[in-house]
Structure formats: C-alpha cells, structure tokens
C-alpha cells in the first residue's frame, strides 16, 4: 500500500515538474539576454495544445513509428522511479539498481532512434546517427561515475547511495565526489541535449540532434516525445541532487516522519531542482555550441574525469 502511494507521488511530481525545469532554463536564458522571455509555464500550454491536436503519420511508417512515443514516455517515467524525490522509509526497501536505470533510459533512446530512421527522412537518419554517437560516448562515463559513487556507498541501488551520502556530511568536500560531480554535470549537458552538445532552441539542420529525431512527429505524439525528453532531463537532475545534496539529510536532522517528512523533503527537493536548473542555464549562456567533431573531446574529458574519481577512490584507500 505504502509502496503504491510513494510511487504515485513520485510519478505525479516528476511529470508535473518536468516542463517547469525547461521553463526555468528558458526564462533565465531570456533574462540574461535582457529579454522578457516566454512565461514560466509556457511548455505546459504547448503540451496541452499539442495533446488536443490530431496526429499525422506518414503512409510508409511502420508500427515502430507509432509505438515509439509511448515507449519513450514509459521508459522515462520508469527511469524516474529509480530516483526518489521524497523521503522513503528505509524499512520499505527500494528495488532497482543503477545498471537497470541506465538501460531503461537507453531503451527509450533506442526506440527514439529507430522511429527517426523509420520514415526514411534524411533529417531523421542524420539525427539518429548523431544521437547514437553522442550516447555511445557519454554512457560509459555515466556508468563509471555511478559505479564510483556506488563503491563508496557499497551498493548499486541509487536509493542506498542516497541514504549513505546523507551520512557523509558535505559530499562536495570529498575529493572523489567532487570529480563525480564535475563528470555528472558534463553528462547531464550531453544527455539532455543542452548547448555545448546540441542546441534545443533551434531547428538549424547543421547542428540539431534531438530535434532532428522528432521532426516527423505531430500532435499528441509530439507532445509525448517532448514530455519524455523533459522527464529524462528532470531524472538526470534528480540523480545529481540525490547523490550530492540528498534531501534525506533534512529529515534526519529534524527527526520528522510520516506526512511531514514527505512534504518537507519534497519542498527541499524542488528548491534544489530549481537551483540546478539555474546552474544549467548559466552554463548554457556562457558556452558556445561545439562542432560535432569536437564532441568526442568533451566526452573524453567527461569519461576521464569520472575515471579519475574511480582512481582517487583507490588512491585514498577507502
């Protein structure tokens, strides 16, 4: 029973908060350019409008094209269940580990790439080949980062890691954690198609990666695709927040329990998410889009930084 309630809270919070993150990032970017920018809730309006419209599907498209939006959103929501947004009583347990987390996310991406190839449009093929390249380069560093943090916590469950970190003190003052933090920041930028890797706000054929893949979609399917992209983004931000500034800490501090614990941890979580989105927006404002062939350099740096954290764990001898 409790499990169902927690899972429900988890899903509702993730789905409702995901478009807000996009809104915040766009707003901060607009403010730094001295524009007023779209309202914070613009993405909700867009999604509602798209959900009301009918779907146009190409005659040559197969079932993969039709199924991909549902698989994408299902995998994104399933992945969000691995990263707790509220306090979770330890007695309840928490299933799933990080290898499954990464592969569930990869499943959604795989179907997205297949669907882009399905209609045989030139942009779709280009977008999925680029996406395949970027994800193949970035995924190893994500896994190495998670393994390093898991080695310290002696567990592969993100929930256990979060609980362990809550006892560490300030994780950002720990040499292994800080390298993982730097790597995870680079990974988030690459995984959520943010500026040094991909520009989410343009449809320029030379540079687009994610937009090229969903170019063929319309109406409800497009809404699902965009929502799943923003849920993936929120899942990665939640991962960062869970590992580095666990909101469990507050609960342990004040000895709260039950409903109050959920409410307080949710509030802390939302504040942290807002801060991280502002950080991402600031990074995005201060960098320029990389050439596609320079992305391996960034990926190599991300991988090496995470691997360095792995080495430091052994050098420290803990």
């Amino acid at each position: 029973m409790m499990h169902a309630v927690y899972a429900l809270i988890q899903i509702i919070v993730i789905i409702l908060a995901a478009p807000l993150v996009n809104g915040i990032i766009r707003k901060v970017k607009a403010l730094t350019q001295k524009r007023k920018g779209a309202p914070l809730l613009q993405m909700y309006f867009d999604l509602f409008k798209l959900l009301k419209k009918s779907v146009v599907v190409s005659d040559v498209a197969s079932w993969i094209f039709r199924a991909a939006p549902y698989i994408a959103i299902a995998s994104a929501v399933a992945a969000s269940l691995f990263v707790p947004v509220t306090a979770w009583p330890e007695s309840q347990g928490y299933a799933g580990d990080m290898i499954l987390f990464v592969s569930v996310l990869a499943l959604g991406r795989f179907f997205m790439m297949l669907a882009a190839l399905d209609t045989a449009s030139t942009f779709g093929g280009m977008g999925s080949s680029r996406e395949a390249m970027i994800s193949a380069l970035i995924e190893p560093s994500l896994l190495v980062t998670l393994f390093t943090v898991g080695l310290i916590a002696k567990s592969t469950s993100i929930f256990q890691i979060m609980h362990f970190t809550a006892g560490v003190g300030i994780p950002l003052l720990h040499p292994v954690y800080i390298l993982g933090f730097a790597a995870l920041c680079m990974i988030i930028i690459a995984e959520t198609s943010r500026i040094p890797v991909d520009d989410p706000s343009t449809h320029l054929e030379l540079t687009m990666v994610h937009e090229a893949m969903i170019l063929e979609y319309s109406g409800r399917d497009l809404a699902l695709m965009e929502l799943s992209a923003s849920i993936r983004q929120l899942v990665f931000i939640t991962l960062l927040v869970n590992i580095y500034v666990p909101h469990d800490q507050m609960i342990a501090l004040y000895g709260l329990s039950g409903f109050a614990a959920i409410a307080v941890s949710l509030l802390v979580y939302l504040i942290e998410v807002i801060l991280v989105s502002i950080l991402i927006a600031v990074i995005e404002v201060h960098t320029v889009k990389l050439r596609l062939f320079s992305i391996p350099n960034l990926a190599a740096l991300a991988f090496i930084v995470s691997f360095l954290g792995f080495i430091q764990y052994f050098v420290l001898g803990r």
Partner: protein
Amino acid sequence: MSSYLDILSVLLLLSSFVLMANKRIKSHIRTFRFQSAMIALAAGILGVNSLIHEGRVDLLVVCAVIIAIKVIYIPRLLHRVYANVEYKVEKDFFLNIPILILGCCMIVVFTYFALSKTDGINTGTENMRVVNSVSLILIGLFFMISRKKAIGQIVGFLVIENGIFVTAMFATQGMPFIVDMGMFVDLLSAVMILGIMVFKINEKFDSIDINKLKNLRG
C-alpha cells in the same frame, strides 16, 4: 583543513586535464591562472595553519608571492606575448585530444603505482596529495612535448614548476623560505627569457612553430 587540501589537490589535477583538453592559447593562460590561484589557496591554508600552531609567517609570504607572480604577472606577460604573435589557435598537436587525455590518465595510474611502492609517504591522504602533485609534474611534461607552438610549451613549463612546488609543499608542509624564493626568482627569469625568445622567433621566422627552428636561415 586536510579535506580542503585534498579537494585542492584534486582540483589541481583536474585543471591540468582541462589544460590538456583546451585548444586555445587564451584558455591555456586562463587555466594556468586558475591553477596558480588554487596553489596560492593551498599555501594560504597551510600558512594560516602554521601561523596558528607554530607562529611561522613564511608560508603566508610565499602565498602572497605566488599571487603576485603566478596569478597576476606571468599570465599578463603571456597575454602580451600572445597579442604579438600571429597564431591564435594551437591546432598542431602531435596526437588528437582524446588520446592526449587518455595519456594523462595513464600518467596518473602510473604515478599511483610508482608511488605506492615508495616508503615514507604512504600514510593515508598524504599519499593521495603527493600522487596528484607528482602526476601534475608529469602531465606538464607531457603537455610540453605534445604542443608544437612555443607559448604552449611555456605553459607546460609553468605547469611542471607548479607541480614541483606543490609536491614539495604537500610532502613537507612548507619548504624552507629561501628555497621557495629561489624557485620563484628562477621561474621569473626563465619565463621572461622565454617570452623574449618567442618574440624573437616570431620576428625571425614569421611563426612560433618550433619545427621551423630546424630550417637554416642566413
């Protein structure tokens, strides 16, 4: 205090990786400035510690000298040299960037295994700081041999010097004052001579590519 020094040693190592991944001379200089500021901070932390416990002020003086020379003077000198040469992007590496960064990583692993056999420094986090700073020396050397242009090599030389200084500082909790000062004077004269050399190479060969030094010119 010791956890701050651990973080600083990791950040120093990280900055050398960022240096390796950069292509532009301007960002080399910026990263070098960041690295020197980290070193100044580490010296400051050690200095405050030794002031409280032993009443010594020499490390604080060293910290001030680092800020004056490495954070302010040398980067400014390098910027001035850079403004006077034609080549703005150092794209002539001997290897591509991912391989260079992997090489750096190998250096860190090598240093770890080399130092784990050494007696005397294998006490907990001390060891980690020494590993990081010795790898900083070797990465500086690697940076120097991987760049073809003269300014990149000056930056590599400075990174080696930073590494030597940090190794000495972390291993001994502050070298004798006169040794530190001697190192700085050495460094300062070396960089000034190198800066003048770059001017002269540029004037004579219309480029700062050191491969052209092999050509004979009458």
